[in-house]
């Protein structure tokens, strides 16, 4: 007779409640401790009676000077405490570039262009296979210069693309927030693969006539995680300059980076990278706190460049024929996983509830001292965050992270759908994903968002935001015309 299978412990309802109870107890430990203390104090006061209490007070023999001194000290202490706290950084609003339909590159267009441009049949077939498994949809967009056969990667076309994407995003942001360009105090621009002189930040200052004492910085070459580096820099600047705001622009300019050769490791960017840009308004002004959408809680940066494998896994180089392109190594997923683990070890203690940290710590101790065969405890980040924005670097990246963090399909839906609709827009993808979550009406007050970006170097950067007010479904924005069609089921392989 077949034995009944052992019950799955993790799905037992009773055990779940025990787990919940345990979590609640540990997380609110200090508060719970206060109850017996307060009870004891109250009992003591009741026992002493009012006369004794007055006697106690009088015996302190406080005269006027001492009262004034203590009063002064309390006020002084409070002022110093309040002014030395780090200033909160608010995300007032942000806007993403919505590419025009004329720039769309459906699979058929992409394959037709590839066949006309490339003479090597093998590399054409390779690109087709990449596209089939990429997780991209039919509505991703390439800049006008890439629609030519062959593409025309001139500097003028690159600047034109930059102007199109960046100015559209900023115009949207200005419209949404009522921001006056003359009020911008800090400007940080990141664009990895296009860096003209004067910089893109100077281009923005020229177009919008920003003030002459604006603090501008132009970061370049820092990869797909540069958006969070810009946010980190803006945050540092906002800590120093009171009552200021910062405009952060994250983009990637595709025009100058078309790879014209046939080396396989360098063909992937052609297939995956698409046009996109995001403009973000950050502020530390108290009056913006009322209308801000999010507050920045943490930014954690991890740089794995010291490891040679990690350093070389996304590398710009020339192939044998002299064509310049970005080569992606086969180790990319493994390195991304390692970089994420390093980042988690720093961010975990900052965001995980005490219960998870304690479990992780106990499992670690147990593995080291008692039995190395115990499975390592993966902290449940779903307890720390309601929403996840994982850089839409490619299907494999999202799959890898979903596995590593034990996330459900709904958690990574924003990333997958962004990859499908917009492709890999590099550093701005995190903002398209956030916009997806808002467009789906899922962003509630108090929700915490974790943005994870990966980039060449190899870097893994995280930012944690807390939602300050329930976000109404946006009526405009990049998802406004297609959000009802999402989520879509993305097959493993799209047959071309």
């Amino acid at each position, binding site marked *: 007779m077949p034995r009944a299978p052992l019950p799955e412990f993790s799905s037992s309802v009773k055990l779940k409640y025990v787990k919940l109870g345990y979590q609640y107890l540990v997380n609110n430990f200090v508060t719970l401790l206060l109850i017996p203390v307060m009870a004891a104090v109250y009992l003591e006061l009741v026992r002493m009676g009012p006369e004794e209490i007055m006697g106690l007070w009088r*015996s*302190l*023999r406080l005269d006027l000077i001492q009262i004034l*001194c203590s009063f002064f*000290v309390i006020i002084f*202490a409070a002022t*110093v405490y309040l002014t*030395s706290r*780090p200033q909160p950084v608010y995300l007032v609003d942000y806007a993403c570039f919505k590419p025009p339909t004329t720039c769309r590159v459906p699979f058929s267009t992409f394959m037709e262009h590839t066949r006309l441009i490339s003479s090597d049949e093998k590399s054409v077939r390779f690109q087709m296979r990449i596209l089939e498994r990429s997780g991209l949809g039919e509505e991703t967009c390439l800049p006008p210069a890439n629609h030519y056969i062959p593409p025309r990667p*001139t500097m*003028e076309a690159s*600047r034109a693309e930059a102007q199109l994407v960046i100015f559209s995003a900023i115009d949207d942001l200005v419209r949404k927030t009522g921001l006056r360009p003359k009020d911008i105090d800090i400007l940080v621009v990141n664009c*990895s*693969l296009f*860096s*003209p*002189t*004067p*910089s*893109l*930040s*100077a*281009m923005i*200052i*020229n177009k919008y006539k*920003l003030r*002459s*004492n*604006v*603090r*501008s*910085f*132009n*970061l*370049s*070459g*820092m*990869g797909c995680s540069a958006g969070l580096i810009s946010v980190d*820099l803006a945050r*540092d*600047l906002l*800590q*120093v300059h009171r009552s200021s705001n910062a405009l952060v622009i994250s983009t990637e300019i595709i025009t100058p980076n078309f790879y014209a050769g046939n080396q396989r490791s360098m063909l992937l960017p052609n297939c995956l990278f698409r046009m996109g840009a995001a403009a973000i308004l950050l502020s530390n002004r108290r009056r913006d706190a009322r209308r801000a959408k999010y507050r920045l809680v943490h930014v954690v940066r*991890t*740089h*794995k*460049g*010291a490891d040679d494998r990690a*350093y070389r896994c*996304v*590398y*710009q180089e*020339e192939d044998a024929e*002299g064509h*310049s392109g970005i080569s992606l190594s086969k180790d990319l997923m493994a390195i991304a996983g390692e970089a994420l683990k*390093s980042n988690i070890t720093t961010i975990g203690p900052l965001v995980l509830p005490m219960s998870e940290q304690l479990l992780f710590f106990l499992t670690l101790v147990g593995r080291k001292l008692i039995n190395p065969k115990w499975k390592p405890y993966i902290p449940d980040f779903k307890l720390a965050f309601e929403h996840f924005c994982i850089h839409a670097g490619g299907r494999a990246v999202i799959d890898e992270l979903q596995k590593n963090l034990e996330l459900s399909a709904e958690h990574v839906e924003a990333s997958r759908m962004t990859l499908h609709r917009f492709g890999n827009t590099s550093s701005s993808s995190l903002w398209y994903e956030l916009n997806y979550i808002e467009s789906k009406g899922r962003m509630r007050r108090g929700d915490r968002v974790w943005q994870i970006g990966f980039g*060449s*170097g*190899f*870097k893994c950067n995280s930012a944690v935001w807390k939602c300050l007010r329930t976000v109404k479904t946006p009526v405009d924005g990049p998802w406004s015309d297609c959000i009802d069609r999402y989520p879509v089921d993305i097959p493993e392989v799209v047959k071309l």
Partner: protein
Amino acid sequence: MELLWMIATVLFLYSSLSFLWKAFDCRRNQNCYLLDYVCYKPSDDRKLSTELCSDVIKRNKRLSMPDYKFLLKVVVNSGISEETYGPRSIIEGREESPTLDDCDDEVDDCMYSTLDKLFHRTGISPGDVDVLVVNISMFAPAPSLTSTIVNRYKMREDVKTFNLSGMGCSASPIAIDLVNNVFETRKRTLAVVITSESIAPNWYCGTDKSMMLGNCLFRSGGCSFMLTNDPSLKHRAKMRLKCLVRAHSGANDDAYSCAMQKEDTDGRVGFHLSKSLPKVAVRAFTENLQTLAPKVLPVGELALYVIRGLRHRLRRSKETKAYAGKAVRVNFKSGVEHFCLHTGGAAVIDAVGSALGLNKYDVEPARMTLHRWGNTSASSLWYVLGYMEAKKRLRRKDRVLMLSFGAGFKCNSCLWEVLRDLEDGGAWEDCIQAYPPQSLVNPFMNKFGWVSEA
């Protein structure tokens, strides 16, 4: 109850003292000290003599005789000596098609040699670096140059890297501004900044005159310097940052387009310098000085300026013709002892010098830097500083003003206070005795002097 009173007093004293200490401690982090700097000295086989320049120019078959004459005239009259350095790809004849390896090698050589020396001289290990900033305007590969350095020197995982690019010749003060801001948010932080320029991928091989000037004036150079806000390292520091002013006139269309990297009519990329550059530079300069002057000048000088200004206005209203042209001058030398001027060209140095009321002694470091190193873009300020130090001009409590211009159009300045007598020869060590030379005239003036004739 006596005990209670004593405990209460002790607690109050302790809390007030600890809060006072905290407030004081915050102030201590806000100093930015320059620990050391190392200027790049390329190998001698990379020297670009006038003869070699002439050969390189001749290799461009698209140039006509008038173009050739124009270029040679610029080189001969530039105030640049035979000792300046160029990238290997240009010297070896690959200026029109440099490979990515050429560009990497040029930049890597500069970064590694200066950083090795910097870490060796300061005795600080790369693992202690908390912030890393690289600014190279016209070359930004992926992974970034900051990642290249992190990889080479095996820096920590939590190092904050920033790769600034496209910010032109005045990027040094911008990098210092960035580091200074990070310093104000963290205690005991160490930062390394590398500033240089990439010449190899930016050689212009067309015929547009406005773009050929860059070819003639830019030379290889770079500098790595170490900054910290750790008060315990103050005794080893060379200088302390007193103030920094940035002025961006990019809102004006002329200013934005006067120094711009773009394609010429044939589609070749070059660095265009327009004729309105001097006017734009003056405007940006004035804007910077308007903010800088109150921070740098002593109160007495500012008061005198106000009085002189009022008097000038009163006189002007009475006798319009006599005083119409004269502007009221501020004597910057009352607040600054040494001036590090960006070596954009002989004309730029002279113009800035006369605007600030400087004499030959004051502009000598900039002139000599232009002579010995050429226009090394953002790192030129550090070579000028190196000259002053090698000449033993920098004494304790002296104030040094760094002033630079850059594409955008920006004018950035920063004021340093020297913390101890400085005597290091640095990159000038082997040639400082020969400076200032008897004559700055190009030795090939005889051979190429005909280009100046009609």
